């Protein structure tokens, strides 16, 4: 099991620097949005972070009396990961991206960086993660920004109640990346009414503008694999075979960083293959999300309605169905009908519009506490989405020239920007850093 994580990374490895070198002045080295997203930041260019921080797991029953079927026997409550300063300090809540949990690989560096800079940090799973769907969601149907924000808010109130004896908090802020960034905006809006936290700063890292638009961009990556989205088995097997053969003939002693770098250097995969792998990774997440929601809400979508699943039941067939369904199908066949029932007269277009920053733009425009950091080549944003962010947030928007979707997150300069953002104290006539 030692190489499990590395192999995961390797399986989602890619390639080719087909694009020109990164802009002058910004030193993140990987060109190409998909390569950046899969490879992340080379070790020597990452911000220096402590190897270990005193993280602790907090597991809470945030919603009392949930009936959990036996198949989720391992789910004992909503999981939070927290790291606390010994003295009084500001606190930052963190929300990860689609299908990610409170220990997601992208989340830990942010957590370490903020802890190092003197903050308490508490992270929770994204509302699209099965743990949240099972133990943190009132409806068990994820994807509605307002409802998910209300669930997140309730969970954060609960966890603060739990830890209030242990820590002293000077003020609260919140950050999220990817879908978590978009959700952070809705959580902040809710906070203006409920005022449990009075967030001082809200940072959106590589957020989606519109859920439907971002998901469409990701799903479109599968159109470019041979045979299209219905041929993901052949596609995945061909990638694995390439990768295996490369390992077999090369002079490697194991699946390690050196091997991964070699895969990158030799352009083993082309752009379309790299994009396809990202979309497939997304499908693996969404399969878990769809299954968890369907079982909890007894939706009859991929699991027969009223079926009782036991602890040991083989689930492979549901997995196969789940990875073959696009997120857009989930939207049209499961999500939209669910909300149509709840809100009679709701049109599909109106729902798409609701699941977007546009639905709260007046608030976002007026509030000084927001900041956005994203990349010119983040493929979850269309050109129009990026322009919209620039117009909406003006100088509160920081756009890096490269990095794809979150690939440059751990790069020194990006990490420094995050810390500066939260350090900022609003003075008279102050502006964002």
């Amino acid at each position, binding site marked *: 099991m030692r190489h499990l*994580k590395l192999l995961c990374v390797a399986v989602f490895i890619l390639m080719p620097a087909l694009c020109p070198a990164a802009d002058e002045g910004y030193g993140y080295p990987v060109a190409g949005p998909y390569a950046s997203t899969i490879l992340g930041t080379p070790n020597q260019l990452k911000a220096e972070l402590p190897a270990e921080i005193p993280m602790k797991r907090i597991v809470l029953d945030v919603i009392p009396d949930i009936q959990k079927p036996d*198949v989720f026997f391992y789910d004992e409550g909503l999981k939070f990961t927290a790291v606390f300063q010994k003295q009084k300090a500001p606190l930052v809540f963190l929300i990860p991206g689609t299908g990610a949990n409170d220990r997601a690989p992208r989340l830990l560096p942010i957590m370490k960086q903020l802890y190092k800079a003197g903050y308490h940090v508490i992270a929770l799973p994204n509302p699209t993660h099965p743990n949240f769907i099972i133990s943190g969601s009132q409806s068990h149907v994820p994807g509605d920004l307002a409802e998910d924000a209300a669930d997140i808010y309730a969970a954060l109130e609960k966890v603060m109640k739990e830890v209030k004896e242990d820590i002293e908090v000077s003020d609260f802020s919140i950050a999220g990346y990817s879908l978590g960034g978009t959700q952070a905006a809705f959580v902040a809006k809710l906070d203006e009414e409920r005022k449990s936290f009075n967030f001082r700063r809200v940072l959106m890292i590589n957020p989606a503008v519109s859920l439907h638009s971002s998901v469409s961009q990701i799903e479109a990556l599968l159109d470019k694999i041979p045979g299209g989205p219905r041929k993901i088995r052949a596609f995945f097997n061909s990638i694995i075979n390439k990768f295996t053969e490369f390992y077999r003939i090369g002079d490697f002693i194991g699946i390690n960083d050196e091997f991964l770098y070699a895969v990158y250097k030799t352009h083993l995969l082309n752009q379309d293959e790299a994009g396809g792998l990202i979309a497939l990774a997304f499908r693996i997440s969404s399969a*878990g999300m769809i299954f968890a929601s369907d079982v909890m809400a007894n939706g009859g979508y991929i699991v027969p309605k009223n079926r009782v699943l036991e602890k040991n039941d083989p689930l492979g067939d549901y997995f*196969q169905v789940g990875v073959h369904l696009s997120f857009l199908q989930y939207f049209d066949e499961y999500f939209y009908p669910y909300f149509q029932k709840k809100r009679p007269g709701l049109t599909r277009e109106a729902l798409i519009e609701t699941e977007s920053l546009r639905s709260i733009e007046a608030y976002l425009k007026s509030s000084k506490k927001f900041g956005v950091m994203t990349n010119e080549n983040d493929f979850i944003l269309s050109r129009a989405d990026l322009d919209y962010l620039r117009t909406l947030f003006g100088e509160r928007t920081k756009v890096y020239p490269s990095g794809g979707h979150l690939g440059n997150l751990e790069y020194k300069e990006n990490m420094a920007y995050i810390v500066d953002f939260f350090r900022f104290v609003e003075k008279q006539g102050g502006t964002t850093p």
Partner: protein
Amino acid sequence: MTRIFRRKCLALIILSLAVTLAGCATTTANLRPEVPAMHTIAEFSDDYDVIHAPDPWERFNRNMYRFNYNFDKYIFLPVVTGYEFITPTFVQTGVTNFFSNVGEFRTLYNSLFQAKFNKAIVTLGRFVTNTTIGIGGLFDPATSFGMERQREDFGQTLGVWGIGAGPYLVLPILGPNTVRSAGGFAVDAGIRMAVMTAIDPFENVDNGDAIEAGIFALEAIDMRHREKFRYYDSGHPFEYEIVRFISAKRLELDTMK
């Protein structure tokens, strides 16, 4: 003393097995009739088995996977957490290095079985360096001298000899394997036992058996301490399927080098 220790271990294992297997017998009666799902596997029969590894013994394996989760939760991880709490980090590293150094022996003879002489020479060099300069294996200067750790076991040897991997098999405590890697593990353990019996390092020591049992326990704790994987921690409902694929693939890749 040893016998008592072994009995205690056995009792704990049986207890965890019982905890795991209980509940299998009780099947909740389903009172409402099932309604077919909107999407079923039949619809995707032309593109079946994505990210898949064959698993003819799936029921057994799922049981074992869950047993390991329970064993970790109630026994193994609390012990490991206690160990990590009471021992300073440099001691933990020393313990890890020590058992890695003992493990070089396994890599050495398996490299020879596979006629991988370069590996055998590096491994021998590592063993000599770490046993002497590294003070009985507590430190690992060999790696900083450019001699990287190689890993070979009898499961890999069998693979090189052309024996098929066999079905996926989740072992109690040891976790995901194939029949071949599990058999290889047993052979390596047997060889080690034979060597220990021949050398008998605690022959003239009082309570030699107890010391041996203590060393075995420490090795098991160190093994779990090194392994960051936690069963079901991903929270993903298809973790079992994904881990199965990755484990099978990893074992396949291991025999290539």
